[in-house]
C-alpha cells in the first residue's frame, strides 16, 4: 500500500491536510472517510486509515484540527480546538464532504464512499451521514448523538439524533455496554429513532467493553470487542460499498 499526507479542499474552500492510504495495485476501490477522535489527527487514527487500505479500500482521514495548528502536533492542535469550543459541526461536514470528493476523484475509486468515526468522530460520522452523500456509515461509540438543549452550543447547534430522518445511507452503530456516553439509554434511543424513520441499520453492543474499545494504545482497549468490531466494520462496508457486478 501507499500512505501519505495530502492536501485537500475542505469546508468553504479551505485547504486542510489529510492522511491518504490506498492499495498499490491498479483498480477501482471503495472509499472510506475516517473521522478521528477528539485527541486529534494522531498516529492511532493513521493506523486505522492504513488498515482500510490493507483491506482493499482507499481511505482518507481529514485533519479536522488542521486550521488551528497547520503542521503542529496533534495534541497541541487538539488543545487549541478544545479551548476554542470544539470543531464546528458545519466545518466538519464541509471537510468530510471534501474528503469524500477527494476519494471519488482519486482515479482509483469505484464511486462509493463510506464514513467511519470514533468517539467524538462517532458523533460526527452520524451527522456527516445526514449531510454528505455517502453509501455507508459506521458510528463507533459517539457521545452526545442524543443531546439535550443544555449540551448544544453555537458550534454544535443540533443534536445528531434530530437528523436521523436525513441519514443518507445504512448505519452500523458499535457500542460498549459499559460506556457512560453514550450510555444504554442513549443507544436504545438511537435504535428507536432509526426504526422510527425506517433507516437500515445495525446496532451492536459489546459486553465487557466501554468507550474506546478499538483504541489499541489506551487502557480502554478490549481485544475481543475490537476483533469482532472490525469484522462487523468490514462486513458493513463490504456489503454497501462493493462494486455491483454487471
Amino acid at each position, binding site marked *: 500500500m501507499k500512505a501519505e499526507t495530502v492536501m485537500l479542499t475542505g469546508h468553504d474552500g479551505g485547504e486542510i491536510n489529510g492522511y491518504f492510504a490506498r492499495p498499490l495495485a491498479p483498480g477501482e476501490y471503495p472509499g472510506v472517510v475516517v473521522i478521528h477522535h477528539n485527541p486529534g489527527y*494522531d498516529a492511532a487514527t493513521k493506523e486505522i486509515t492504513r488498515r482500510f487500505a490493507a483491506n482493499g479500500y482507499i481511505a482518507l482521514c481529514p485533519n479536522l484540527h488542521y486550521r488551528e495548528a497547520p503542521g503542529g502536533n496533534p495534541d497541541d492542535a487538539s488543545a487549541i480546538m478544545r479551548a476554542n469550543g470544539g470543531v464546528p459541526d458545519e466545518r466538519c461536514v464541509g471537510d468530510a464532504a471534501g474528503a469524500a470528493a477527494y476519494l471519488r476523484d482519486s482515479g482509483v475509486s469505484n464511486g462509493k464512499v463510506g464514513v467511519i468515526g470514533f468517539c*467524538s468522530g462517532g458523533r460526527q460520522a452520524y451527522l456527516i451521514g445526514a449531510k454528505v452523500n455517502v453509501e455507508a456509515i459506521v458510528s463507533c461509540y459517539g457521545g452526545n448523538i442524543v443531546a439535550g438543549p443544555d449540551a448544544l452550543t453555537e458550534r454544535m447547534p443540533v443534536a445528531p439524533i434530530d437528523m436521523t430522518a436525513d441519514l443518507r445511507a445504512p448505519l452500523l452503530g458499535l457500542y460498549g455496554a459499559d460506556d457512560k456516553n453514550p450510555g444504554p439509554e442513549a443507544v436504545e434511543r438511537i435504535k428507536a429513532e432509526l426504526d422510527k424513520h425506517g433507516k437500515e441499520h445495525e446496532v451492536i453492543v459489546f459486553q465487557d467493553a466501554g468507550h474506546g474499545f478499538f483504541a489499541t494504545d489506551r487502557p480502554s482497549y478490549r481485544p475481543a470487542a475490537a476483533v469482532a468490531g472490525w469484522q462487523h466494520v468490514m462486513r458493513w462496508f463490504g456489503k454497501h460499498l462493493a462494486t455491483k457486478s454487471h
Partner: protein
Amino acid sequence: MCTHMNTPVRLHAAGRGREGWTPIDTANVYYDHPFHLAREHSLNIDLTRSGGGPQERIGLELSGASAAALAHAILAALAAGEQMTGDDHTRERVPDRPSHE
C-alpha cells in the same frame, strides 16, 4: 466517554516549555481523555499564552488522585508561604485580559 469540557482560568504566570520560558496567561483545565497518560480519563491542564503558537503549550495530564494531591499541595504551600512572608494573594489582581494582548 468524551466530556468535551473546558474550564479556562486567567493566570499571571510564566512557564518553561519546549522553547524556554514564556509568559502564561491561561490555564485550560478539563477532565477528559488524556493524550499520553495510560488512563481512560485524566485531569488535564494546558498552560498557554494568548497569541502564542501551538508549540508553546505546556501540557499536564494527571490521574484523579494525583490532581487532588497536587491541588491540595498548591493550596497548602501557598498558605504556608504567605504566612511566612506576609504576602496576601487575595489582594492580588489577576487581569481579566492578558496584559500583552
